[in-house]
């Protein structure tokens, strides 16, 4: 150990931890985790952004904490310990939002609290943080949170644009003046099923670009 050179902070391996979840190992479109919140909070772009940020912070910090404690956590109660860490983080985020972004916190309602049950976070703790050093774990958490977030933002962008005709609350469609020629907002975009269809289309798009994702028959 002593004669091996210390791994640089941003070695190719670590960079990959950060970027893989954005593409080929995306938690939503490839692993199909965390779907419920993707359906629930993507009607408007702003709550989706806040949600994406919250999940990224919770995943990254929980990953870091668990990685630091990984040698002292008893095997048989590890899930409980993980949950306590996640729950603490979620409460912190929730209180923070209530204090500084009350409107968004209202819109997100229970879904901030429900981050605790987000499969992505539990999955990362179990699959990665329990077996890796703190720094890679932190990067992995950041990467997966961002991978989740980017899909949320894409879905929310389309749902807000076509469902409400706005972008971050700015009335794009109205400014374009297409209501006067008979355009109407699509009511189905606001309903949860459409989020599922949009996620499906993203998966379709991604697979048609990256053939390695297609299962062999």
């Amino acid at each position, binding site marked *: 150990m002593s004669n091996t050179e210390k791994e640089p902070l941003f070695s190719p391996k670590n960079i990959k931890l950060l970027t893989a979840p954005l593409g080929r190992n995306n938690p939503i479109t490839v692993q199909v985790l965390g779907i419920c919140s993707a359906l629930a909070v993507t009607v408007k772009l702003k709550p989706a952004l806040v949600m994406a940020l919250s999940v990224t912070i919770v995943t990254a910090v929980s990953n870091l904490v668990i990685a630091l404690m990984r040698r002292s956590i008893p095997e048989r109660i590890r899930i409980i310990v993980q949950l306590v860490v996640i729950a603490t983080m979620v409460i912190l985020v929730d209180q923070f939002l209530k204090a500084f972004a009350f409107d968004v916190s209202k819109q997100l309602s229970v879904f901030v609290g429900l981050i605790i049950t987000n499969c992505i976070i539990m999955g990362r703790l179990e699959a990665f943080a329990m077996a890796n050093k703190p720094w890679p774990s932190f990067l992995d958490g950041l990467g997966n949170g961002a991978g989740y977030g980017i899909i949320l933002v894409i879905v929310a962008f389309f749902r807000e644009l076509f469902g409400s005709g706005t972008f971050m609350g700015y009335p794009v469609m109205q400014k374009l003046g297409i209501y006067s020629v*008979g355009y*109407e907002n*699509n*009511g189905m*975009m606001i309903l949860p099923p459409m989020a599922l*269809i949009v996620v*499906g289309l993203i998966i*379709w798009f991604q697979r048609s670009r990256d053939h390695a994702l297609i299962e062999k028959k």
Partner: protein
Amino acid sequence: MNSLRKKIDRIKPHFEEGGRFSKLRSVFEGLETFLFVPDKVTVRGSHIRDSIDLKRTMTVVIIALIPAFLFGAYNVGLQHYRSIGIEGSVVQLFWFGFLKILPLVIVSYGVGLGIEFIAAQIRGHEINEGFLVSGLLIPLVMPIDVPLWMVAVSTAFAVIIGKEVFGGTGMNIFNPALMARAFLFFSYPGWMTGDKVWVEGLTKGQNVIDGFSGATPLGMLAIGETGNMPSFMEMFLGTIPGSIGETSTVAILIGALILIVTGIGSWKIIVSVFGGGLAMGLLLNAVAVNSYMELPAYYHFVMGGFAFGAVFMATDPVSGTQTETGKWIYGFLIGVLSVLLRVLNPAYPEGVMLAILMMNMFAPLIDHFVIQANINRRLKRLKVATNNIKK
């Protein structure tokens, strides 16, 4: 005809592998087989050979739809002239309605076939005739006043998300025409409900004579205003506001006759849908607590899209059940759900569309259990037989 054949044969090499237009091969093949019966036949194994193919099946359904289409055109004119209080001759009414429906048909076929052609080119498949029927069904289940771009969007959604995603014609889970209608219903509810959209001109703020209402019978029942209800005979003939092709039960029954005689549509499904509707209607009559529930059960057959759905949508061989027993169960549940949704859910005045889509989803499950039951029955028979031999 011979000269046409020769011409086609002359340009054919260009479209074959390595030819100048080989990319457009499926377009060429589609048009060639549209004009001439394909000369390809199966060569191996024993097959029951019949001249019926997908194209001929679709053509029969189109013929069966013609009565409903013609009456729909007449009725569009009739409702319009009634709303402004002017008398008109039958030809005048028909022509007025025909010109109003034509753009819907053109948009539906244009968008749908366009997407099918593109999808076939990308995938290197042959062009399927599957859209020929859907393309006519879509305008027939739309209100007359719906904006054309909405028809285009719903058709595109139905063909891409409802059909091509699953692998194209024959692979779809849901009936494409109903997918288009459901998309419109949930996306732009203002154009699919209420008392304005069913009669040409009302949404544009045209003046109507006093006492005229553009509400459909189901719409009136849903809000409990039954004073203006048309008579049973009017609803049976179809001189009422509604989606273009759905109003006339007579025209639809003629279509049903064509489908049943030619064996294209399953009479079991049609009969069991009506049976299910009647059973649910009678049950609601028995426990009636309001005037809607007291409505005679057979009224449901002539209102809204019940008959149209039963004859043209539920019998779709792709999205329906395949087993004979399954067809009875499938149809019966469609009938039950349609009436249930209509009467007990005030949010959806018309339940047929949702009932059929829901049962489309369950059709493979029904088939699975029917087949399993058959396997189990035969296994039991086998066991008895082997036991007898042992003795």
